[in-house]
């Protein structure tokens, strides 16, 4: 009786954590990719709205007349640098080099926080000059789109700080470092979205 009950329980029990996934992709990585796909649709909605409004509007100000393109170009450079340091952190832990992993994670955190700081300065200057979400359609979509992206970067920085803290506590090894790969995917996605936003909003 007991034997039968135990067998039934083992059949009903959820699979062990280390069981190979059917897709061949680790569950947390697949989960992050599916989440990123939903984020693609979210930003597509925002970018699509921007494009439609831009083409439908008879007069649209040249972004260069309002926005500081050089400042934002520098900020774009910061985000690209952060992507490189992020991927180097992953490469380092895959080699088993925990010292470099920590260094690159700290650099990524620094670049991410710098990006946010520059964006805050940009917003402050624009608001000070009277350019706000109420002033025009351009102002409205500009603050909505870049604001949501900035919020994503903020969430990324918070998660990155958590992962960096875990790295300093020695939680990641050459064999177990999925957390770094997962946050890296999110971080690169945020960079990818900014590449598109920068072109469409600042350079057209």
């Amino acid at each position, binding site marked *: 009786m007991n034997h039968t009950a135990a067998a039934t329980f083992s059949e009903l029990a959820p699979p062990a954590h280390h069981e190979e996934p059917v897709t061949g*992709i680790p569950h947390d990585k697949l989960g992050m990719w599916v989440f990123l796909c939903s984020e693609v649709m979210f930003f*597509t909605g925002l970018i699509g709205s921007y*494009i439609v409004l831009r083409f439908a509007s008879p007069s649209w100000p040249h972004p260069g007349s309002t926005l500081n393109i050089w400042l934002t170009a520098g900020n774009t450079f910061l985000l690209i640098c952060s992507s490189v340091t992020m991927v180097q952190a992953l490469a380092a832990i895959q080699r088993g080099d925990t010292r470099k992993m920590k260094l690159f994670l700290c650099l990524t955190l620094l670049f991410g926080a710098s990006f946010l700081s520059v964006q805050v300065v940009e917003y402050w200057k624009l608001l000070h000059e009277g350019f706000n979400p109420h002033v025009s359609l351009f102002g409205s979509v500009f603050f909505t789109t870049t604001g949501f992206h900035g919020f994503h970067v903020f969430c990324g920085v918070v998660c990155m700080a958590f992962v960096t803290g875990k790295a300093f506590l020695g939680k990641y090894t050459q064999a177990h470092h999925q957390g770094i790969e997962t946050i890296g995917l999110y971080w690169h996605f945020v960079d990818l979205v900014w590449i598109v936003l920068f072109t469409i909003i600042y350079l*057209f």
Partner: protein
Amino acid sequence: MIQDDEAAREARVEDEERRVHRHPNYMAIFWWLFGLTAGEVSYSVFTHPPRAVLMSVLVGLAIVKATLVALFFMHLKFEKKTLGIIVASTLLLGVILVSVGMAEKLLPRP
């Protein structure tokens, strides 16, 4: 049966090792991204081409940059096809969404 399991496990380990140890030259990709961004900004600020040409060139460059990030930094190039199919489906939906919105403006009204 046991031999089959072992062979499958070895194949998975080899696949994992290939995926983990195959790193592209990240610095080369960084310099490409940097150069393309500099080119984009310079083209937008210092030249005054027709609007359609400007948009086509800038969108083309942005797509190249985004593709570089997705393929090499997000390692999509080295991932399984299943993941590529998931991402491609999403991008297709995105393109449809934007195209329908654009059609409202671009297509002639009846």
